[in-house]
């Protein structure tokens, strides 16, 4: 467990290691009859009771309390406590690993490390915040984000309004490293978190032959195909295979919001889409999504805005997006014949989502803009099948090979004129300030020393109120139900804790409805 490297977060690492050392010491003393059995424990700081008067009972709003509660192992007569202990150990271990490797993980990442243990995302959310509170630090100091949304990788240079280049503030989630393979300046296949578009004056995308929007980073584990312990990441797989730099289809940019896009990611893509040279055309922008209703809804959000409030965020739409896949023809070609090749069945939520989209989305009406999407939704409903983009990994050349082939088929080519690259004018595109009134507040939320509520900082990644969407709320609620259906894991939680947490969640949702966009991920 000990780390010999020096880190900015050394203090937190030390605190985690102290807990493990105490436990190790207790284990070593096991045979010592004078040490009580309950000596193996993790101390958690008690939260002062916050009256349920409608204020968000956030952990950080509460006054620090000096009292501690020990989660012990074993705990006679309290079977749930063993589970809590295990959960805490697992989370602490993962945090420690993230801190030592100096990578930022999301609560969602943590959950997917061991869904069988955590049962629900709520468990992780709750204990991550408890640990942060116990240590007296913000969650970000633990290198855990609520959900770092956008990631981007590829060949471009950011210009900031103050004339500086893009740079990386340690530990701040919204920075983006300059990535460019020419000139050997920075050559990185590591995806970067998407910059706050307010900090971007212009993007130089000269030499970019294509832009690929990918639905998600981490796949949902699905029966038998990918184990939960080993969540494969389409985005990272493609990024680490350097698709964006060594593709036969030319250099490109890949971007993901890991699910439903937040405002920042959409703004960034919008910025990219308008960053081409004035006398050239934009590189084609493609979307790679799952073959399921959410995949189409996510693509639609990038392209046309969220279903219900499309008029309000039309300024962020990227209408030129073309659907690369996964389409019915991609997954059904070999089916109908042999085994299911990664096909999954729609659940009730999927079907409801598909019907809602067909019913309510203007663009999916007969004779409207997206006839193909309408058709694909109908095919899903008819056959009751869906497929995740990970099925492409089964084919020759894997996901990368598949994407490359599709890019080539779609006629992507390198910009012909090399001279253009040298004299490339940066398109000066800035986003209107007034569209993002809460910008200052958002930035504060990202600072490590700000004790904002964790959920608020996640919300802060986008501007509030633009994306409040009842659709998504519905979906979120149904998703919750689905979790509960999977063997009623909620019953395993300490009910007191859960109750507090849920109350917290609900008041947060009321206060800051944009959180729904993010909550979709749950």
């Amino acid at each position, binding site marked *: 467990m000990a780390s010999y490297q020096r880190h900015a977060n050394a203090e937190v690492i030390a605190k985690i290691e102290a807990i493990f050392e105490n436990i190790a010491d207790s284990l070593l003393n096991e045979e010592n009859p004078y040490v009580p059995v309950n000596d193996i424990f993790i101390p958690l700081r008690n939260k002062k009771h916050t009256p349920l008067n409608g204020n968000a009972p956030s952990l950080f709003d509460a006054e620090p309390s000096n009292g501690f509660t020990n989660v012990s192992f074993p705990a006679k007569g309290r079977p749930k406590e063993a589970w809590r202990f295990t959960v805490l150990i697992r989370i602490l271990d993962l945090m420690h690993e993230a801190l030592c490797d100096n990578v930022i993980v999301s609560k969602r990442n943590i959950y997917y490390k061991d869904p069988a243990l955590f049962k629900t995302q709520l468990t992780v959310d709750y204990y991550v915040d408890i640990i942060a509170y116990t240590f007296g630090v913000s969650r970000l100091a633990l290198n855990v984000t609520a959900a770092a949304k956008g990631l981007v990788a590829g060949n471009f240079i950011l210009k900031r309004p103050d004339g500086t280049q893009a740079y990386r503030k340690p530990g701040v989630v919204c920075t983006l490293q300059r990535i460019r393979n020419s000139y050997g300046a920075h050559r990185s296949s590591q995806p970067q978190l998407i910059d706050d578009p307010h900090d971007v004056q212009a993007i130089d995308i000269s030499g970019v032959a294509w832009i690929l929007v990918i639905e998600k980073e981490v796949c949902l584990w699905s029966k038998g195909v990918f184990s939960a312990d080993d969540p494969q990441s389409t985005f990272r797989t493609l990024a680490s295979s350097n698709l964006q730099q060594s593709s036969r289809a030319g250099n490109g940019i890949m971007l993901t919001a890991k699910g439903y896009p937040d405002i920042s990611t959409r703004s960034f893509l919008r910025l990219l889409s308008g960053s081409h040279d004035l006398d050239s055309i934009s590189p084609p922008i493609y979307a790679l999504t799952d073959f399921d209703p959410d995949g189409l809804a996510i693509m639609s959000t990038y392209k046309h805005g969220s279903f219900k409030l499309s008029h309000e965020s039309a300024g962020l739409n990227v209408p030129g997006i073309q659907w690369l896949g996964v389409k019915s023809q991609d997954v059904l070609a070999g089916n109908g014949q042999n085994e299911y090749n990664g096909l999954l069945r729609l659940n009730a939520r999927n*079907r409801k989502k598909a019907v809602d989209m067909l019913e309510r989305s203007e663009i999916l*009406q007969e004779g409207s803009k997206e006839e193909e999407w309408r*058709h694909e939704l109908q095919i899903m409903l008819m056959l009751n099948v869906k497929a995740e983009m990970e099925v492409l990994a089964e084919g020759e050349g894997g996901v990368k090979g598949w994407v490359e082939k599709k890019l080539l088929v779609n006629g992507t080519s390198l910009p012909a004129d090399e001279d253009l690259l040298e004299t490339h004018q940066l398109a000066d595109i800035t986003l209107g300030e007034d569209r993002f009134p809460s910008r200052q507040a958002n930035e504060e939320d990202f600072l490590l020393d700000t004790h904002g509520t964790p959920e608020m900082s996640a919300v802060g990644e986008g501007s509030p109120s633009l994306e409040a969407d009842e659709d998504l709320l519905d979906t979120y609620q149904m998703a919750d139900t689905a979790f509960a259906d999977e063997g009623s894991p909620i019953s395993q939680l300490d009910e007191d804790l859960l109750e507090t947490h849920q109350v917290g969640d609900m008041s947060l949702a009321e206060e800051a409805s944009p959180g729904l966009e993010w909550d979709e991920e749950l």
Partner: protein
Amino acid sequence: MSKQYLTTHTIDHAHPTDIFSLSTTASQILSSSGSSSIRVHSTNQPDFPLFQTLDNAHKLGCHHTAISTNGQVAASVGFEGEVKIWAVRDDGRWSERTKIVDDNKAGEIWSIALSEDGQYLAATSFDGRINVWDNLADGVKIREFETKGSFGMSIDLSVNGRFTASGHENGGIYIFNNDTGRLFHSLPGLVKPVRAVAFSPRGTLLAAAGDSRVIALYDVSSGDQVATLTGHGAWILSLDWSDSGEYLLSGAFDGKVKVWSIEQRTCVATHRETEKTLWSVKWLPKTGKNEGFATAGANRSISFYREATGG
């Protein structure tokens, strides 16, 4: 002994999108698709002219249709989950008579079947329930059969009205007794999704097929599986019995349509005009001595076949 069928006519682009369902009367064929309208073509003229278009029948598209054996009542169900009941007038034109919406919100009306005289409509739901409505009594629900909750993908009513059969996503196949309102048989199913079930005209046999790529024949009274028809290489999406009960027609995901002799328990004809999915295959009324059938699917056309004579 194999049989030979020839394509006699094709209605190209009968619909702008995939054709999901065909239903026939003595002189008409109704087709529905991912578009909002239902089309009616005459089958008693050599060029199968368009007779009527039921505009805006289902805004989101129409996935299933059914016509009563007496040809008087049609039903259609759209992706929005609503059933429309249509009545034919003396001039052969159809008009909407009533609507049926499943009042249980958890449900979603999927596959449908009409009784011989069109009085009763039976339908499956996503959550596996089988409901029966009385069309004469303003669409009152008169039966609700529960199954194990697996998506009811296919349904049929026996011509004599005694039985309802349903095929489910989990491979389950059930026969219900409509008189008693009880489960009559839970058949040894097909393990994989059952996308089509069909009673023989005399109601003695039930055919079932789907992703297992075989057609199972069951004896309705005993519930025993009496035959397995193998030969399809892809999911079977559609089944239809000839009027005489001698032949069974099947259409598959890979665009192949097959004719099976029930007496011989073998495939007597296979045709494939397209590799695109055949969503629906239907026998046509006999003209003279010759059997004929129609197929439709992802190529958006309706193809008509007739048995070759004199061979």
